Every structure is written in structure tokens, then in C-alpha cells.
């Protein structure tokens, strides 16, 4: 009996190893299938955006015809311009307000603080459609009648109501991201600044703000992406005429499947992945990446200034000149971070350096293309 025991164990061990191998194989297959399920449709979408016929089932040859059509589609360009306008305004306001709110909630204790904190999370969790209809009812049944009856102002929905609504759902996202940054914040740095004689404002400007910057930029880019992507809240707060990119795409998607939508989707996909990539890099990376972004933004604006200079000579306007001067000022202002950026870059490892250059390149493209779209 005792002599047999080790043999049984060996058999058991072998059996266990076989089970483990089958288990691993099943797990691997499951993983491959799921990633295939998640990514194949998107890959197929991108491939067929380059098809030279209208088919989305048989690839007949490479062409960029659909992209050329997009670039000449004035309805689409208007929608894209509206999206950018709403997105930029939303981002600026929501980032400023969200950051202030995060600072207030982190540094002060007051009555109903916990309740207000929970309230700030609500717009993130409640269904978007509920928020959409609540804003529709608010504008049409409360705010506009009030403006009409009390102040005699005739108001209607349009890009401004979309912007107001986007700000309302973006504030919580900026708040959450900046708040996370504040949670890791070392308050002794501020005390050190105060000990060295900096007043409150100077401490904020020189210590607090630069340390919070990754969170703020991350939050801003997130807000921008969410605003660019939103369909449901936009559709309930839009006006009669103006539409945004998602509204335009939705109207096409409901009608059917065409390579044109594929091309448009691909463009949007690349845009939002680029923006989110920047956001995540800002939030998790060091200061070298945020510097790369500001250098990139300056370069993008400067490039656009050069690119559009001939049009200024062709038809001179005061507005055009002021615009170029503003662009130049922005370029110079952003370019000031180039020297510190180089210094930071020398301190990072090779892979970080590559990421920093990619970050800069993506920023240049995003800034240049959106300025081009916005200003023509």
C-alpha cells in the first residue's frame, strides 16, 4: 500500500498538469476571441474606408476617394467647425470651474460638503438620456419662458445651449481628475514656499498650479474629447439649424452603411484616440510631456500662421492682421517652454524621449488641423 502511494501521486501530478494546460489553453483562446471581437470590427471599419467601391464586404482596391469627399463636404465641415467651437468653449469654462471646485472641496471643510461631493458625481452616473431631457425641459419650459416674460428677451436653442449643457456634464469629469491629483499633493511644499517668503498668490502661481498642471491638462483634454463625442445630450439641446459632428454621423448611420461613414469614423477615431492619449500622458507622465504639449501647441499655431500668411496678402483685413499677431504672440508665449523642455528631455530615458516627441507631434497635428478647420 505504502509502496503504491508515490505512483498514484505521480499520476495525479501528471493529470493536474494536463488540466492546467487545457485550462491555460482555454483562457488564451477566450482572450484571443474577446480581443478579436473588440477590435476586428474597428479594423474592418478602417480598412473599408479605403475601398474604391461602395461595398463594405468586398475589398476591391485601395483609394482615398472617400476622404477627399469628406474634405469637400461643406455640411460636414460646418458640423466639424461647430463641434470644435462648442468643444473649445466647453473645455475652457469647464476646466476653470472644475479646477476651482476641486480646490475648494480639497482644502475647505463646510456644511453639506459630503452631500455636494456626491452631487458632483451624479451627472457621471445618471443615464445621459435623463440629463438630456432634463435640459430640454429646463430650457424650453423654464428658462426661455422666464427670459421672455420677465426680461422680454426672446431666446432659443442653438450652439450656446449645447455649450452650456456640455459644460454641465464636463465639470464633474474635470473635478474628479483634478481632485485625484490633489489627493497625492504634498502640502509641505506650499508651507516651504510660505516659509521662504512667498505670499498666498505667489505660492499658488509658482508651486500649486505647476504641480496640478498634469491633472488640469488631463482633465481639459478629457472634457474636450467628451464634448466632441457627445450625441445624446447634444440632440436634446440643439437648435433647429446647427448640428455637430456626432449628430451628422448619427443621421448618416441611421440611414445605412457606406464607406463615407467609414472614412469619417476613422478620422474621428484617430482624433479622439490622439486626444485621450495626450490626456493620459499628461495625467501619468512627468512635466516633460506637458512641456512637449505646450511647445507643440505653439508650433501648431505658428505653422498655421505661416500657412495662412498668403491669404492675408491676397486680401488684407484688419481682423486678419490682428489674428496673425495673436497667433504670433501665442507662438512666442508657448515657445518659451522650449529651453526647459530640452533640459527635461535630456534627463529622461530613451523610451520617454520617444514618447515626448510623439506627444509633441500629436499636439502639433491636433492644434494645426483644428485651427485650420476653425479659421479656414
Amino acid at each position, binding site marked *: 500500500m505504502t509502496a503504491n502511494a508515490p505512483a498514484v501521486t505521480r499520476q495525479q501530478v501528471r493529470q493536474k498538469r494536463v488540466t492546467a494546460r487545457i*485550462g491555460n489553453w482555454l483562457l488564451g483562446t477566450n482572450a484571443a476571441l474577446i*480581443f478579436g471581437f473588440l477590435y476586428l470590427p474597428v479594423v474592418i471599419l478602417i480598412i473599408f474606408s479605403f475601398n474604391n467601391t461602395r461595398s463594405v464586404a468586398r475589398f476591391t482596391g485601395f483609394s482615398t476617394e472617400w476622404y477627399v469627399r469628406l474634405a469637400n463636404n461643406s455640411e460636414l465641415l460646418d458640423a466639424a467647425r461647430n463641434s470644435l467651437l462648442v468643444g473649445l468653449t466647453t473645455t475652457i469654462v469647464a476646466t476653470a470651474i472644475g479646477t*476651482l471646485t476641486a480646490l475648494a472641496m480639497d482644502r475647505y471643510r463646510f456644511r453639506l460638503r459630503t452631500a455636494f461631493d456626491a452631487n458632483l458625481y451624479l451627472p457621471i452616473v445618471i*443615464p*445621459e438620456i435623463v440629463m438630456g431631457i432634463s435640459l430640454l425641459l429646463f430650457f424650453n419650459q423654464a428658462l426661455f419662458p422666464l427670459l421672455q416674460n420677465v426680461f422680454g428677451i426672446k431666446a432659443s436653442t442653438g450652439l450656446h445651449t449645447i455649450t452650456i449643457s456640455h459644460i*454641465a456634464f464636463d465639470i464633474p469629469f474635470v473635478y474628479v481628475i483634478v481632485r485625484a491629483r490633489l489627493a497625492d499633493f504634498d502640502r509641505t511644499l506650499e508651507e516651504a514656499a510660505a516659509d521662504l517668503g512667498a505670499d498666498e498668490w505667489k505660492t499658488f502661481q509658482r508651486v500649486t498650479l505647476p504641480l496640478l498642471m498634469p491633472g488640469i491638462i488631463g482633465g481639459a483634454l478629457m472634457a474636450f474629447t467628451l464634448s466632441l463625442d457627445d450625441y445624446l445630450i447634444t440632440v436634446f439641446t440643439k437648435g433647429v439649424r446647427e448640428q455637430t459632428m456626432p449628430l451628422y454621423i448619427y443621421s448618416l448611420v441611421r440611414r445605412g*452603411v457606406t464607406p463615407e461613414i467609414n472614412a469619417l469614423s476613422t478620422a474621428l477615431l484617430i482624433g479622439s484616440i490622439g486626444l485621450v492619449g495626450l490626456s493620459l500622458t499628461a495625467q501619468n507622465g512627468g512635466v516633460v510631456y506637458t512641456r512637449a504639449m505646450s511647445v507643440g501647441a505653439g508650433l501648431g499655431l505658428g505653422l498655421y500662421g505661416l500657412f495662412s500668411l498668403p491669404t492675408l496678402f491676397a486680401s488684407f483685413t484688419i481682423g486678419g492682421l490682428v489674428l496673425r499677431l495673436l497667433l504670433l504672440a501665442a507662438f512666442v508665449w508657448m515657445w518659451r517652454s522650449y529651453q526647459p523642455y530640452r533640459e527635461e528631455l535630456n534627463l529622461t530615458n530613451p523610451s520617454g524621449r520617444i514618447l515626448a516627441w510623439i506627444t509633441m507631434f500629436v499636439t502639433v497635428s491636433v492644434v494645426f488641423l483644428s485651427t485650420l478647420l476653425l479659421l479656414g
Partner: protein
Amino acid sequence: MLKYFRKSKGFQLSGLLGPGALWILIFFNLPILIVLFISFVERGRAGSIKIPPVYTLDNYVQLFNACTSQFAGPECDPLLYVGIFGHSVRIGLVVTFWCIILGYPLAYFISKQKQVWRDALMVLVIIPFWTNFLVRTYALKQVLATEGLLNSFLMNVGMINHPLDLLFNEFAVNVGLIYGYLPFAILPMYASIEKFDHTLMEAAADLGASPARAFLKVMLPLTLPGVIAALVLVFVPVVGAFITPDIMGGGKIEMIGTLINRQFGVSRNWPFGAAMSLILMLLVLIGVIAYFRSSTEETRRGI
């Protein structure tokens, strides 16, 4: 005096908190209160509300008994709307079930890989989060379309003779929702499984437990917070979904989201839509509060 005022805590606090508090109160909380108000008044001729308002509970009554509507025909089904709510909850449960069943092994698989692979695979899980939801849904739609890739592939292989109807039915909506929300399930479950000490499984095996028993008695209970988080994070948005049932269902599959949308579109019954929105919001809030009650801050931060 002014200097003292500027240094006072109240002044600084209101300066920092004021804009955010005002914006959220005016453009989020107030609109929700208006929805509450409108859900208790009668509808007017043009679909909005009667002026002056006439208070009524009819909108809520109609939810539970569709035949109380003034437009109800003779052969109306009193449980029409309850049925649609139930249907949405059922779709929500089916989708959540599949997301967890498929996502848990994947999360486990990722957690067993080497660090580099783990990071790379997690990036693959996160990317769909940040790609436009509409675009992703469209991508799936074109694969499943009658003249889409899947049908033409199956026909070329010879498995089918006629294209299958893969779109505009409940199957399509379910697949679309699983496609959309699977990453939401993987992330929290991965956070839990990654923290799980795998040597505990070896200990259980040494003590004579079969793999199945060790999983059920050791691993599952210890990673349950992640599973519950996945359940909430998938179920909550799926119940209120609109875009997926609209695009993948082609108007044939009714869920709460599409039903609410219709009240503000063709049906033009804003008060009834408002009542439904409130019920949906309550459903979702109950889920979220239950989740917060059952989890600690630490487990949530892992997500």
C-alpha cells in the same frame, strides 16, 4: 476691513466653490427638479404642458396601466410599459451576465501574464473606453449588416445560402451592448483579481480542494468586490441605453431609453416622458447606492 474680508475663509471659499456650485445647481439639479415637476402635470395640446399647470398623478398611473391613456385603443395592454421596463431590465441582466462570464476569465488571464504583456493588454482593454461609442456601434453594425462581412464570409464558405438577419433584432441589441460595455466589466474585475494572492489557490489545492472547489471557496469570494463593481458598471448604463438599441435594433426593439426618446419625438408627451425618466433615474440610483454601500473607498479607487 477689505483686507480682512479678502482673507476670510468664507470669501475665499465662495470664490472657489461659487462658479461650480452655481453651474451644477442651475444646469443640473434645477433641470432634474423641473422634470420632477413636469411629471406631475397634465400634458398640453402641443405635447408640452398645460398652462396654467393642472396637477395629476396620471403619468405615473399610465406607466403601470397603459389603458388609462386617452389614446388607448379598445385592445390595449395595460402592462405595456411595465413590460418594456421589464424587457430593458432583462436585456440589462443578460448583457451583464455575458460581460462577467467573458470578462472574468480574460481579467484572470491578463493578471497571470508578465508585467510588460499585462500593461499592453490592459491598454487594449482601455482603448475602447475612449473611442467614440457611436463609431464603435457603427463598426459592429457594418459587420453584421445583411450585405456585411460576416454574411458574405459565411456564404462564401458555404455555411449558409441566404444572408442571416443579424441586425434589427434583440440578438443584435444584446451583441451591441456586450460589445460596448465589456471593457467596463473587465476593468474592475482585473483590479480585484490582480490584488488576489494566487498562492492561496495552491494552499487550497495542498489542503485537498479540487480546482473548482478552490475557485468557488477561495478565489471567487475574495474577488467578489470586482465582480459586483462590474455588475453595477455594466447594468446601470445598459438599462438606460439609447444609442445601441436605436442603431442595432433599428426601431424594432423597445427599451426604456428609446421609449423616453419617443415621448419627446413623435409621441410628444413630455410629462409622461418625464415620469419615465424619473423612474429610470431612481432605478439607476438604487443600483449605485447599493454599490457604494457594499464597497469600501479602497476597492473603488482600484477601478
